[in-house]
């Protein structure tokens, strides 16, 4: 080999020279097999997903690829979510560092490798000249003329070593995490499957092996602060280059194993997440539980297990197996029995979705799964019609079913309407047609749509321009599915907030510490966090809950769950209450009749509704 290199040296005086004849060595075979397999697998998967999309969905997807706004968003999201992992950084910096070092570092290695090839041996970028593997094993194939190395060359040597060190620090953290996941702020992590283990251990091995391999050849192909000293030690320690080939073989084999195990492991998300981002930014939604867009989501799950700690069912380590990560694992394995069990059990509080670093909408997959079971049953709403159209007034109030069980909310709101001089009508004082969301959540979409149409018709005929709702469950579906023309849809927390901001009503302060419980459908579901808090600040001192806003714990009363037993619900309620009690409030206030009832039944302190506390403190004109 030495003879060979010296021959080349004599012929070519350039900085970088192909060291190996044909620029090929058998050790690349495992890698080539792996990368070919994964590219094929991914392509077939992509075709499958697109095949299962509805025609309109395909058109939207195609159109989105040419819209500059969406293109920019795609690039931004892919950079933030797939490489830097901004979401994880925000929650747990150490975990964020671990992810971005491996993902972004590896990405840099590949890109830098290709840049080096492009700069120094550009002919190898063509497929016939080994572009599949050459840039990956660049350091094996080239000889760098020490006398002709430019500053540019040194720069890349340094950069490659630096990036490798960056990745290795992440790998070290990952190994540490396996041992002590608590140190990184996770109570529970997922149990890895067999394929996960194969992929995991090969992933761990890839970067140390790369370091070893490149260190062995550093004297030939260049290196920097990491590889050169190691090269020096190896050569002095072993006395020759005997271990040269085996390490490159091992490195290539580990890459091959990793790619072969990838589709059956959690690491598939590395490749599918960018696809998911493109689909999602195009505006696609989950319609079927296993195919189409849902499949992209299922394969984008990184099994990180953040949803295990997030799930309110796990407050007392009770139902770990009902978390989204296991749900998705069962979906991948087509385990229908378990899929249904989890789909039906879930509260659909949306916390796993809100916290998911990949942004997988698993609540929607659950609803889609329920739809496959429950949409087909017969229904008959022929006689369900309001007996009269409400009298013409500007503001229409829809109390909804649950508010009928909490007369205090109805009464308080009526008082507020009167004090505000509102020209209002209650649509459903005596008879109420359900908003349709409970049916929707149960997977009975068709039936829900019929109710939506009935309500929509009468609301539009009433001639109102403002619709006020007291139940967040109603609010969410009115906002998302009703598409009411020229009618402003408001949750009463928004309405009261605007009354206070515009000085239409005034309230007196109470000497009380108040904690606010975010109802799932109002907070995470509709993004309304500030208005109720603003309202409460005008009444008393607002204290924080242990977990609040998007991290708030469901009260346990959610209509989302079909099968959760009362005693398990009670455990969740206790969890939510203990989070609310963190800063010793005098009163718990919420803005949902269902949360109100659920928390009130279990709370050690006063529970009030937002409307109740305002109505009580309103200064009468």
């Amino acid at each position, binding site marked *: 080999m030495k003879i060979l290199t010296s021959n080349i040296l004599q012929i070519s005086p350039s900085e970088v020279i192909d060291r190996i004849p044909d620029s090929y060595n058998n050790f690349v075979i495992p890698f080539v097999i792996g990368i070919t397999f994964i590219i094929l697998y991914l392509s077939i998967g992509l075709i499958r997903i697109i095949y299962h999309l509805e025609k309109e969905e395909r058109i939207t997807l195609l159109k989105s690829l040419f819209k500059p706004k969406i293109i920019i968003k795609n690039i931004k999201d892919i950079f933030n979510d797939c490489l830097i992992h901004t979401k994880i950084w925000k929650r747990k910096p150490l975990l964020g560092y671990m992810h971005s070092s491996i993902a972004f570092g590896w990405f840099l290695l590949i890109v830098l490798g290709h840049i080096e090839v492009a700069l120094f041996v550009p002919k190898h970028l063509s497929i016939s000249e080994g572009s599949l593997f050459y840039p990956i094993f660049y350091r094996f194939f080239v000889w760098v003329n020490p006398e002709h190395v430019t500053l540019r060359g040194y720069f890349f040597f340094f950069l490659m070593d630096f990036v490798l060190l960056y990745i290795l620090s992440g790998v070290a953290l990952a190994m540490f995490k396996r041992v002590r996941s608590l140190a990184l702020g996770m109570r529970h992590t997922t149990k890895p499957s067999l394929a996960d283990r194969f992929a995991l251990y090969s992933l761990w091995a890839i970067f140390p092996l790369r370091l070893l391999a490149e260190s062995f050849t550093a004297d030939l192909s260049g290196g920097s602060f990491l590889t050169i000293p190691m090269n020096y030690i190896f050569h002095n320690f072993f006395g020759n280059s005997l271990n040269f080939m085996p390490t490159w073989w091992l490195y290539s084999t580990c890459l091959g194993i990793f790619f072969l195990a990838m589709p059956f492991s959690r690491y598939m998300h590395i490749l599918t997440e960018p696809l998911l981002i493109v689909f999602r930014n195009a505006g696609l939604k989950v319609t079927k539980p296993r195919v189409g867009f849902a499949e992209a989501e299922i394969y984008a799950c990184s099994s990180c297990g953040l949803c295990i700690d997030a799930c309110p069912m796990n407050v007392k380590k009770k139902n770990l197996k009902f978390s989204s990560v296991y749900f998705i694992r069962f979906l991948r394995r087509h385990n229908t029995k378990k899929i249904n069990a989890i789909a039906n059990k879930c509260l659909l509080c949306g916390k796993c979705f809100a916290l998911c670093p990949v942004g997988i909408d698993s609540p929607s997959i659950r609803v889609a799964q329920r739809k496959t079971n429950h949409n087909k049953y017969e229904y008959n709403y022929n006689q369900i019609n309001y007996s009269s159209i409400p009298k013409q007034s500007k503001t229409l109030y829809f109390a909804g079913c649950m508010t*009928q*069980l*909490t*007369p*205090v909310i*109805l*009464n308080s709101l009526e008082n507020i309407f009167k004090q505000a001089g509102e020209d209002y009508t209650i649509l459903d*004082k*005596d008879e109420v047609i359900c908003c349709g969301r409970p049916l929707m959540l149960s997977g009975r979409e068709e039936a829900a749509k019929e109710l939506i149409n009935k309500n929509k018709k009468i609301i539009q005929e009433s001639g109102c321009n403002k619709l006020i709702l007291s139940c967040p469950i109603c609010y969410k579906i009115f906002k998302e599915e009703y598409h009411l023309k020229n009618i402003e849809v408001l949750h009463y927390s928004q309405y009261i907030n605007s009354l206070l901001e515009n000085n239409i009503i005034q309230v007196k302060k109470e000497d009380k510490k108040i904690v606010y419980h975010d109802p799932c459908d109002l907070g995470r579901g509709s993004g309304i966090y500030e208005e109720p808090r603003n309202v409460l600040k005008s009444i008393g001192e607002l204290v924080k809950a242990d977990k609040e806003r998007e991290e708030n714990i469901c009260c346990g009363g959610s209509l989302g769950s079909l099968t959760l037993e*009362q005693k398990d619900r009670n455990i969740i309620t206790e969890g939510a209450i203990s989070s609310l009690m963190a800063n010793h409030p005098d009163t718990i206030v919420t803005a949902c009749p269902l949360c109100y*009832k659920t928390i*009130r*039944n279990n709370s050690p302190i006063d529970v009030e509704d937002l409307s109740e506390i305002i109505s009580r403190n309103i200064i009468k004109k």
Partner: protein
Amino acid sequence: MKKNVLIIGGGPSGLEAATILKKFNYNVILVERSSILGGHLAKWDRLFPYMEPAKETLDVLLSNIDGITIFKDTEVNSINLLDKSYNVILSNGITILADALLITTGFDLFQAEKKEEYGYGIYEKVITSAELEEYFKTLNNNKIDNPKKIGFVHCVGSRDEKAANRACSKVCCATAVKQACEIKEKYPDADVYCFYMDLRMFGRGYEDLYLKAQKDYAIRFIRGRVSEVSEDINKSLVIKAEDTLSSKPIRVTLDLLVLMSGMRPSSGGEKIKKMLNLMTEDDGFFSTKDSIYSLQHSKLAGLFYAGAATGPKTLPDSLHEARSAAIQIHNYLNN
């Protein structure tokens, strides 16, 4: 030297047991946290099933209390179990070394505002059975203003998992029928409805009371549990229930709604429970040593129960238990 027996709770059971234990020549100390003796009986007007004035029974109970040390407005601050006695410190600073303890802490009425769908505390014309009883005594309640239509809701906070009480409170059915008759006596023109799930008229004379309510007072009994109460524009109450016997939802407008609050373990009893780590059943009432033979015994030697501290009971039941407990305590102190 006379042995000390401490009775916690000055209701009918406590008073009756105290009287008998005094006759057995013990030094009896009775602690009552309120300022009135007689417990719930003192607030009642007439008793089912024969409409005897509650005051007569109360007077009998109070006529024999001479020689009993009674601390009113006093609570138990701590209890320590010593070798064969209990060291009890009271809120008035007095310490008692009791050779036997009798717990007659009775019950509290279920807080009707917890069933918010019934609108107690929200609607003016919704009252509890206790308020109605007080009205019969004093004839003074501005919520009761010549009502034309009156409803009684049975099982408020009883037989209701949502109110965390699966058990029957035993006395509310008979009380409701009694009060229905009484209000009809006051307002003969009124229509009176009783909404019930099951009518549990188990005692002697109860069925006669029921018959009288049907025959003499024309009370309308509707088998269905009220689920919601709302108010119409005229501030009348609108009641929603189902007439399960005709399988139709029912809606009726009322001027007065009476909620038959059930029995919950008393808050005083809960305090004692914590002091001695006493056992309670799922329903929250104290566990007795067994469920048939030793109803007055606890698992602790020298600690006894009587009355509604161990679950809902009628007044005669409680008095029986008080007498039984007195005898058991006597046996215990002489062995």
